[in-house]
């Protein structure tokens, strides 16, 4: 900050400056500073400079900012695994969701802005290798599965990221999205057969279609899963 202001000194000050009251502060500056500070506090980037660069470039371009919506307490395992958290995934989703297909380089750029380790990105992408471009929803699904260990917890994460409901409420997403993600993930999972997947989805669809206008919430399949587990005696 002072560096910036030092450079200011080189810029011509008015000749006759006698007292501190003559120093002029641009009126937008406090606001920008405040927003930036709040964003930084909320996002808690490990490398503030890196992130700030990303922040300001996104701000200057008018893109969605790499800012978390809510303060997230750092998870204990954050340093050991991908370092990805739900909030960070949400940021990525916010920034990249409008494009269906995302350029890999851009993804890397955004990944770096969030101060996440690059190996981890490669690790995630290894699950479903692509070359140049990746479909965003698929990457999101992979990210979710990286967050939650099991398929169902991954679906839960996906619901909560994608939902438009207020936080804490029933995290509902349209059934097509849900089924797409679910099919994709269960397709990657070698243990589950396609038939199981289809059956499961069909069951869910019946319960969902008539009552909830085609939106599926966390409670629908999470509980469902428990019942199913009991039933299958897994």
């Amino acid at each position, binding site marked *: 900050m002072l560096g910036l202001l030092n450079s200011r000194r080189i810029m011509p000050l008015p000749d006759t400056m*006698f007292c501190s009251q003559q*120093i002029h502060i641009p009126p937008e500056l406090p606001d920008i500073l405040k927003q930036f500070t709040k964003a930084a506090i*909320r996002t808690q980037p490990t490398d503030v400079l890196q992130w700030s660069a990303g922040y300001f470039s996104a701000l200057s371009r008018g893109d969605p900012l790499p800012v978390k919506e809510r*303060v997230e307490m750092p998870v204990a395992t954050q340093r050991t695994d991908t370092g990805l958290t739900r909030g960070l995934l949400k940021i990525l989703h916010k920034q990249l969701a409008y494009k269906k297909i995302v350029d890999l380089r851009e993804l890397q750029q955004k990944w770096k802005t969030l101060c996440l380790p690059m190996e981890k990105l490669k690790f995630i992408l290894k699950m479903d290798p692509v070359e140049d471009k990746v479909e965003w929803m698929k990457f999101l699904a992979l990210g979710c599965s990286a967050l939650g260990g099991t398929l169902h917890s991954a679906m839960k994460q996906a619901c909560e990221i994608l939902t438009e409901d*207020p936080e804490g*409420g029933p995290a509902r997403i349209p059934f097509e999205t849900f089924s797409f993600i679910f099919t994709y993930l269960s397709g990657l999972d070698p243990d589950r057969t396609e038939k199981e997947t289809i059956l499961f989805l069909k069951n869910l669809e019946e319960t969902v279609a008539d009552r909830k206008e085609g939106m599926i919430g966390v*409670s629908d399949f999470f509980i469902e899963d428990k019942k199913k587990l009991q039933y299958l005696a897994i």
Partner: protein
Amino acid sequence: MTSTVADSSPRPTGTYTFASRPRALNCQRRRYRECFGADEEPVHYGNIMYDRRVIRGNTYALHSYPPSTQPDPVELQRQQEAKRKALARRRAREHLRPRSPEPVEGRKHVDVQTELYLEELADRIIEVDMECQTDAFLDRPPTPLFIPAKTGKDVATQILEGELFDFDIEVKPMLEVLVGKTIEQSLLEVMEEEELAELQKQQQQFEELRNLELAEVQRLEEQERRHQQEKERRREQQLQQLQKQNETAQKIAARAYAQVYLADLIPSVFGSLRDNGYFYDPTERDIEIGFLPWLMHEVDKTIEYNMVGRVVLDMLIREVVENRLNMFEQLAVKEPKKTLPDNKDEEQGESFTIGSEQFAEEQESLPTRSFQDVPPEKDSFQMPFGDNLDIFDMKESDVSEDKEP
């Protein structure tokens, strides 16, 4: 209306002694709204200047006013004595004082001043007004400034441009405020937003839970309601069934009873019908309707003929008897007869037999329906039918009584 406490001779008969007892002033202006029957004392007030009790003049040579309350009787007596003595002394003095003789008639004594210099005796005291005036207080004038004598050396200097103002130093407080305030403010705001968001989240979670539970409750209620309805329906069904069973049992009972009751209805009906002759053997009926009346009619006729015969016979007999009687009477007149009644009997019997023979002959000429053998020749008079029909049994005596057929 002051009270003077006797200083020199305090006789505490009570707590206090008074020259005049204190009493409440009776003010014309009522202090309270009504006076509760205050005793109407005569109002004593007057000018204090003219109150005899107020001591004027020298107070150091006066007799102390004796206390009027509870005076010691000895003291009282002594006082009286003193008074009398004083009075006596004064009278004595008066006596001894040389006085000028009384004025002559038409003259009057007048007091005259005889000193060298006449003194004006005036009632009015000469008064002189004296005045005195002081000046108004003046404020204390300010102390003059203390200006010490000048000491030291005079030195001068000159400031060039750009020397007074150092940007870095000047800007530091501003920066501190700017940055510090920014961080502080943003931190506060973030915390507040966080708190609000957290509250919202908790509210939402609670809503969710509540909705789920509500749904559960509703489901259970529905279930319960359905159970109730089901129970109701089953009960209704059962009741209906019971009712039907009852009805059926009653019907069966009624039926059985009716059957038993009406079991011998038919036989009795038929019996009574038969008794009343509704079932008849046609030939029997025929006999009864056709034959028997005819038979009766025939019997009637026969009997009538019998009767007629008998009557005729009777008449004959009577005539004969009368003729014979006349004859015999005629004879009797000539010869008295003895066995009149015996002859009569024998003759009657004979005439009867004669009569019956005649009848029998007559009857043979009549057309007969031979159901039974008609024995026309018999000794005693018998009916054409056998002895079965008792109705037609007639005694000889009966016949004889019938005079008419």
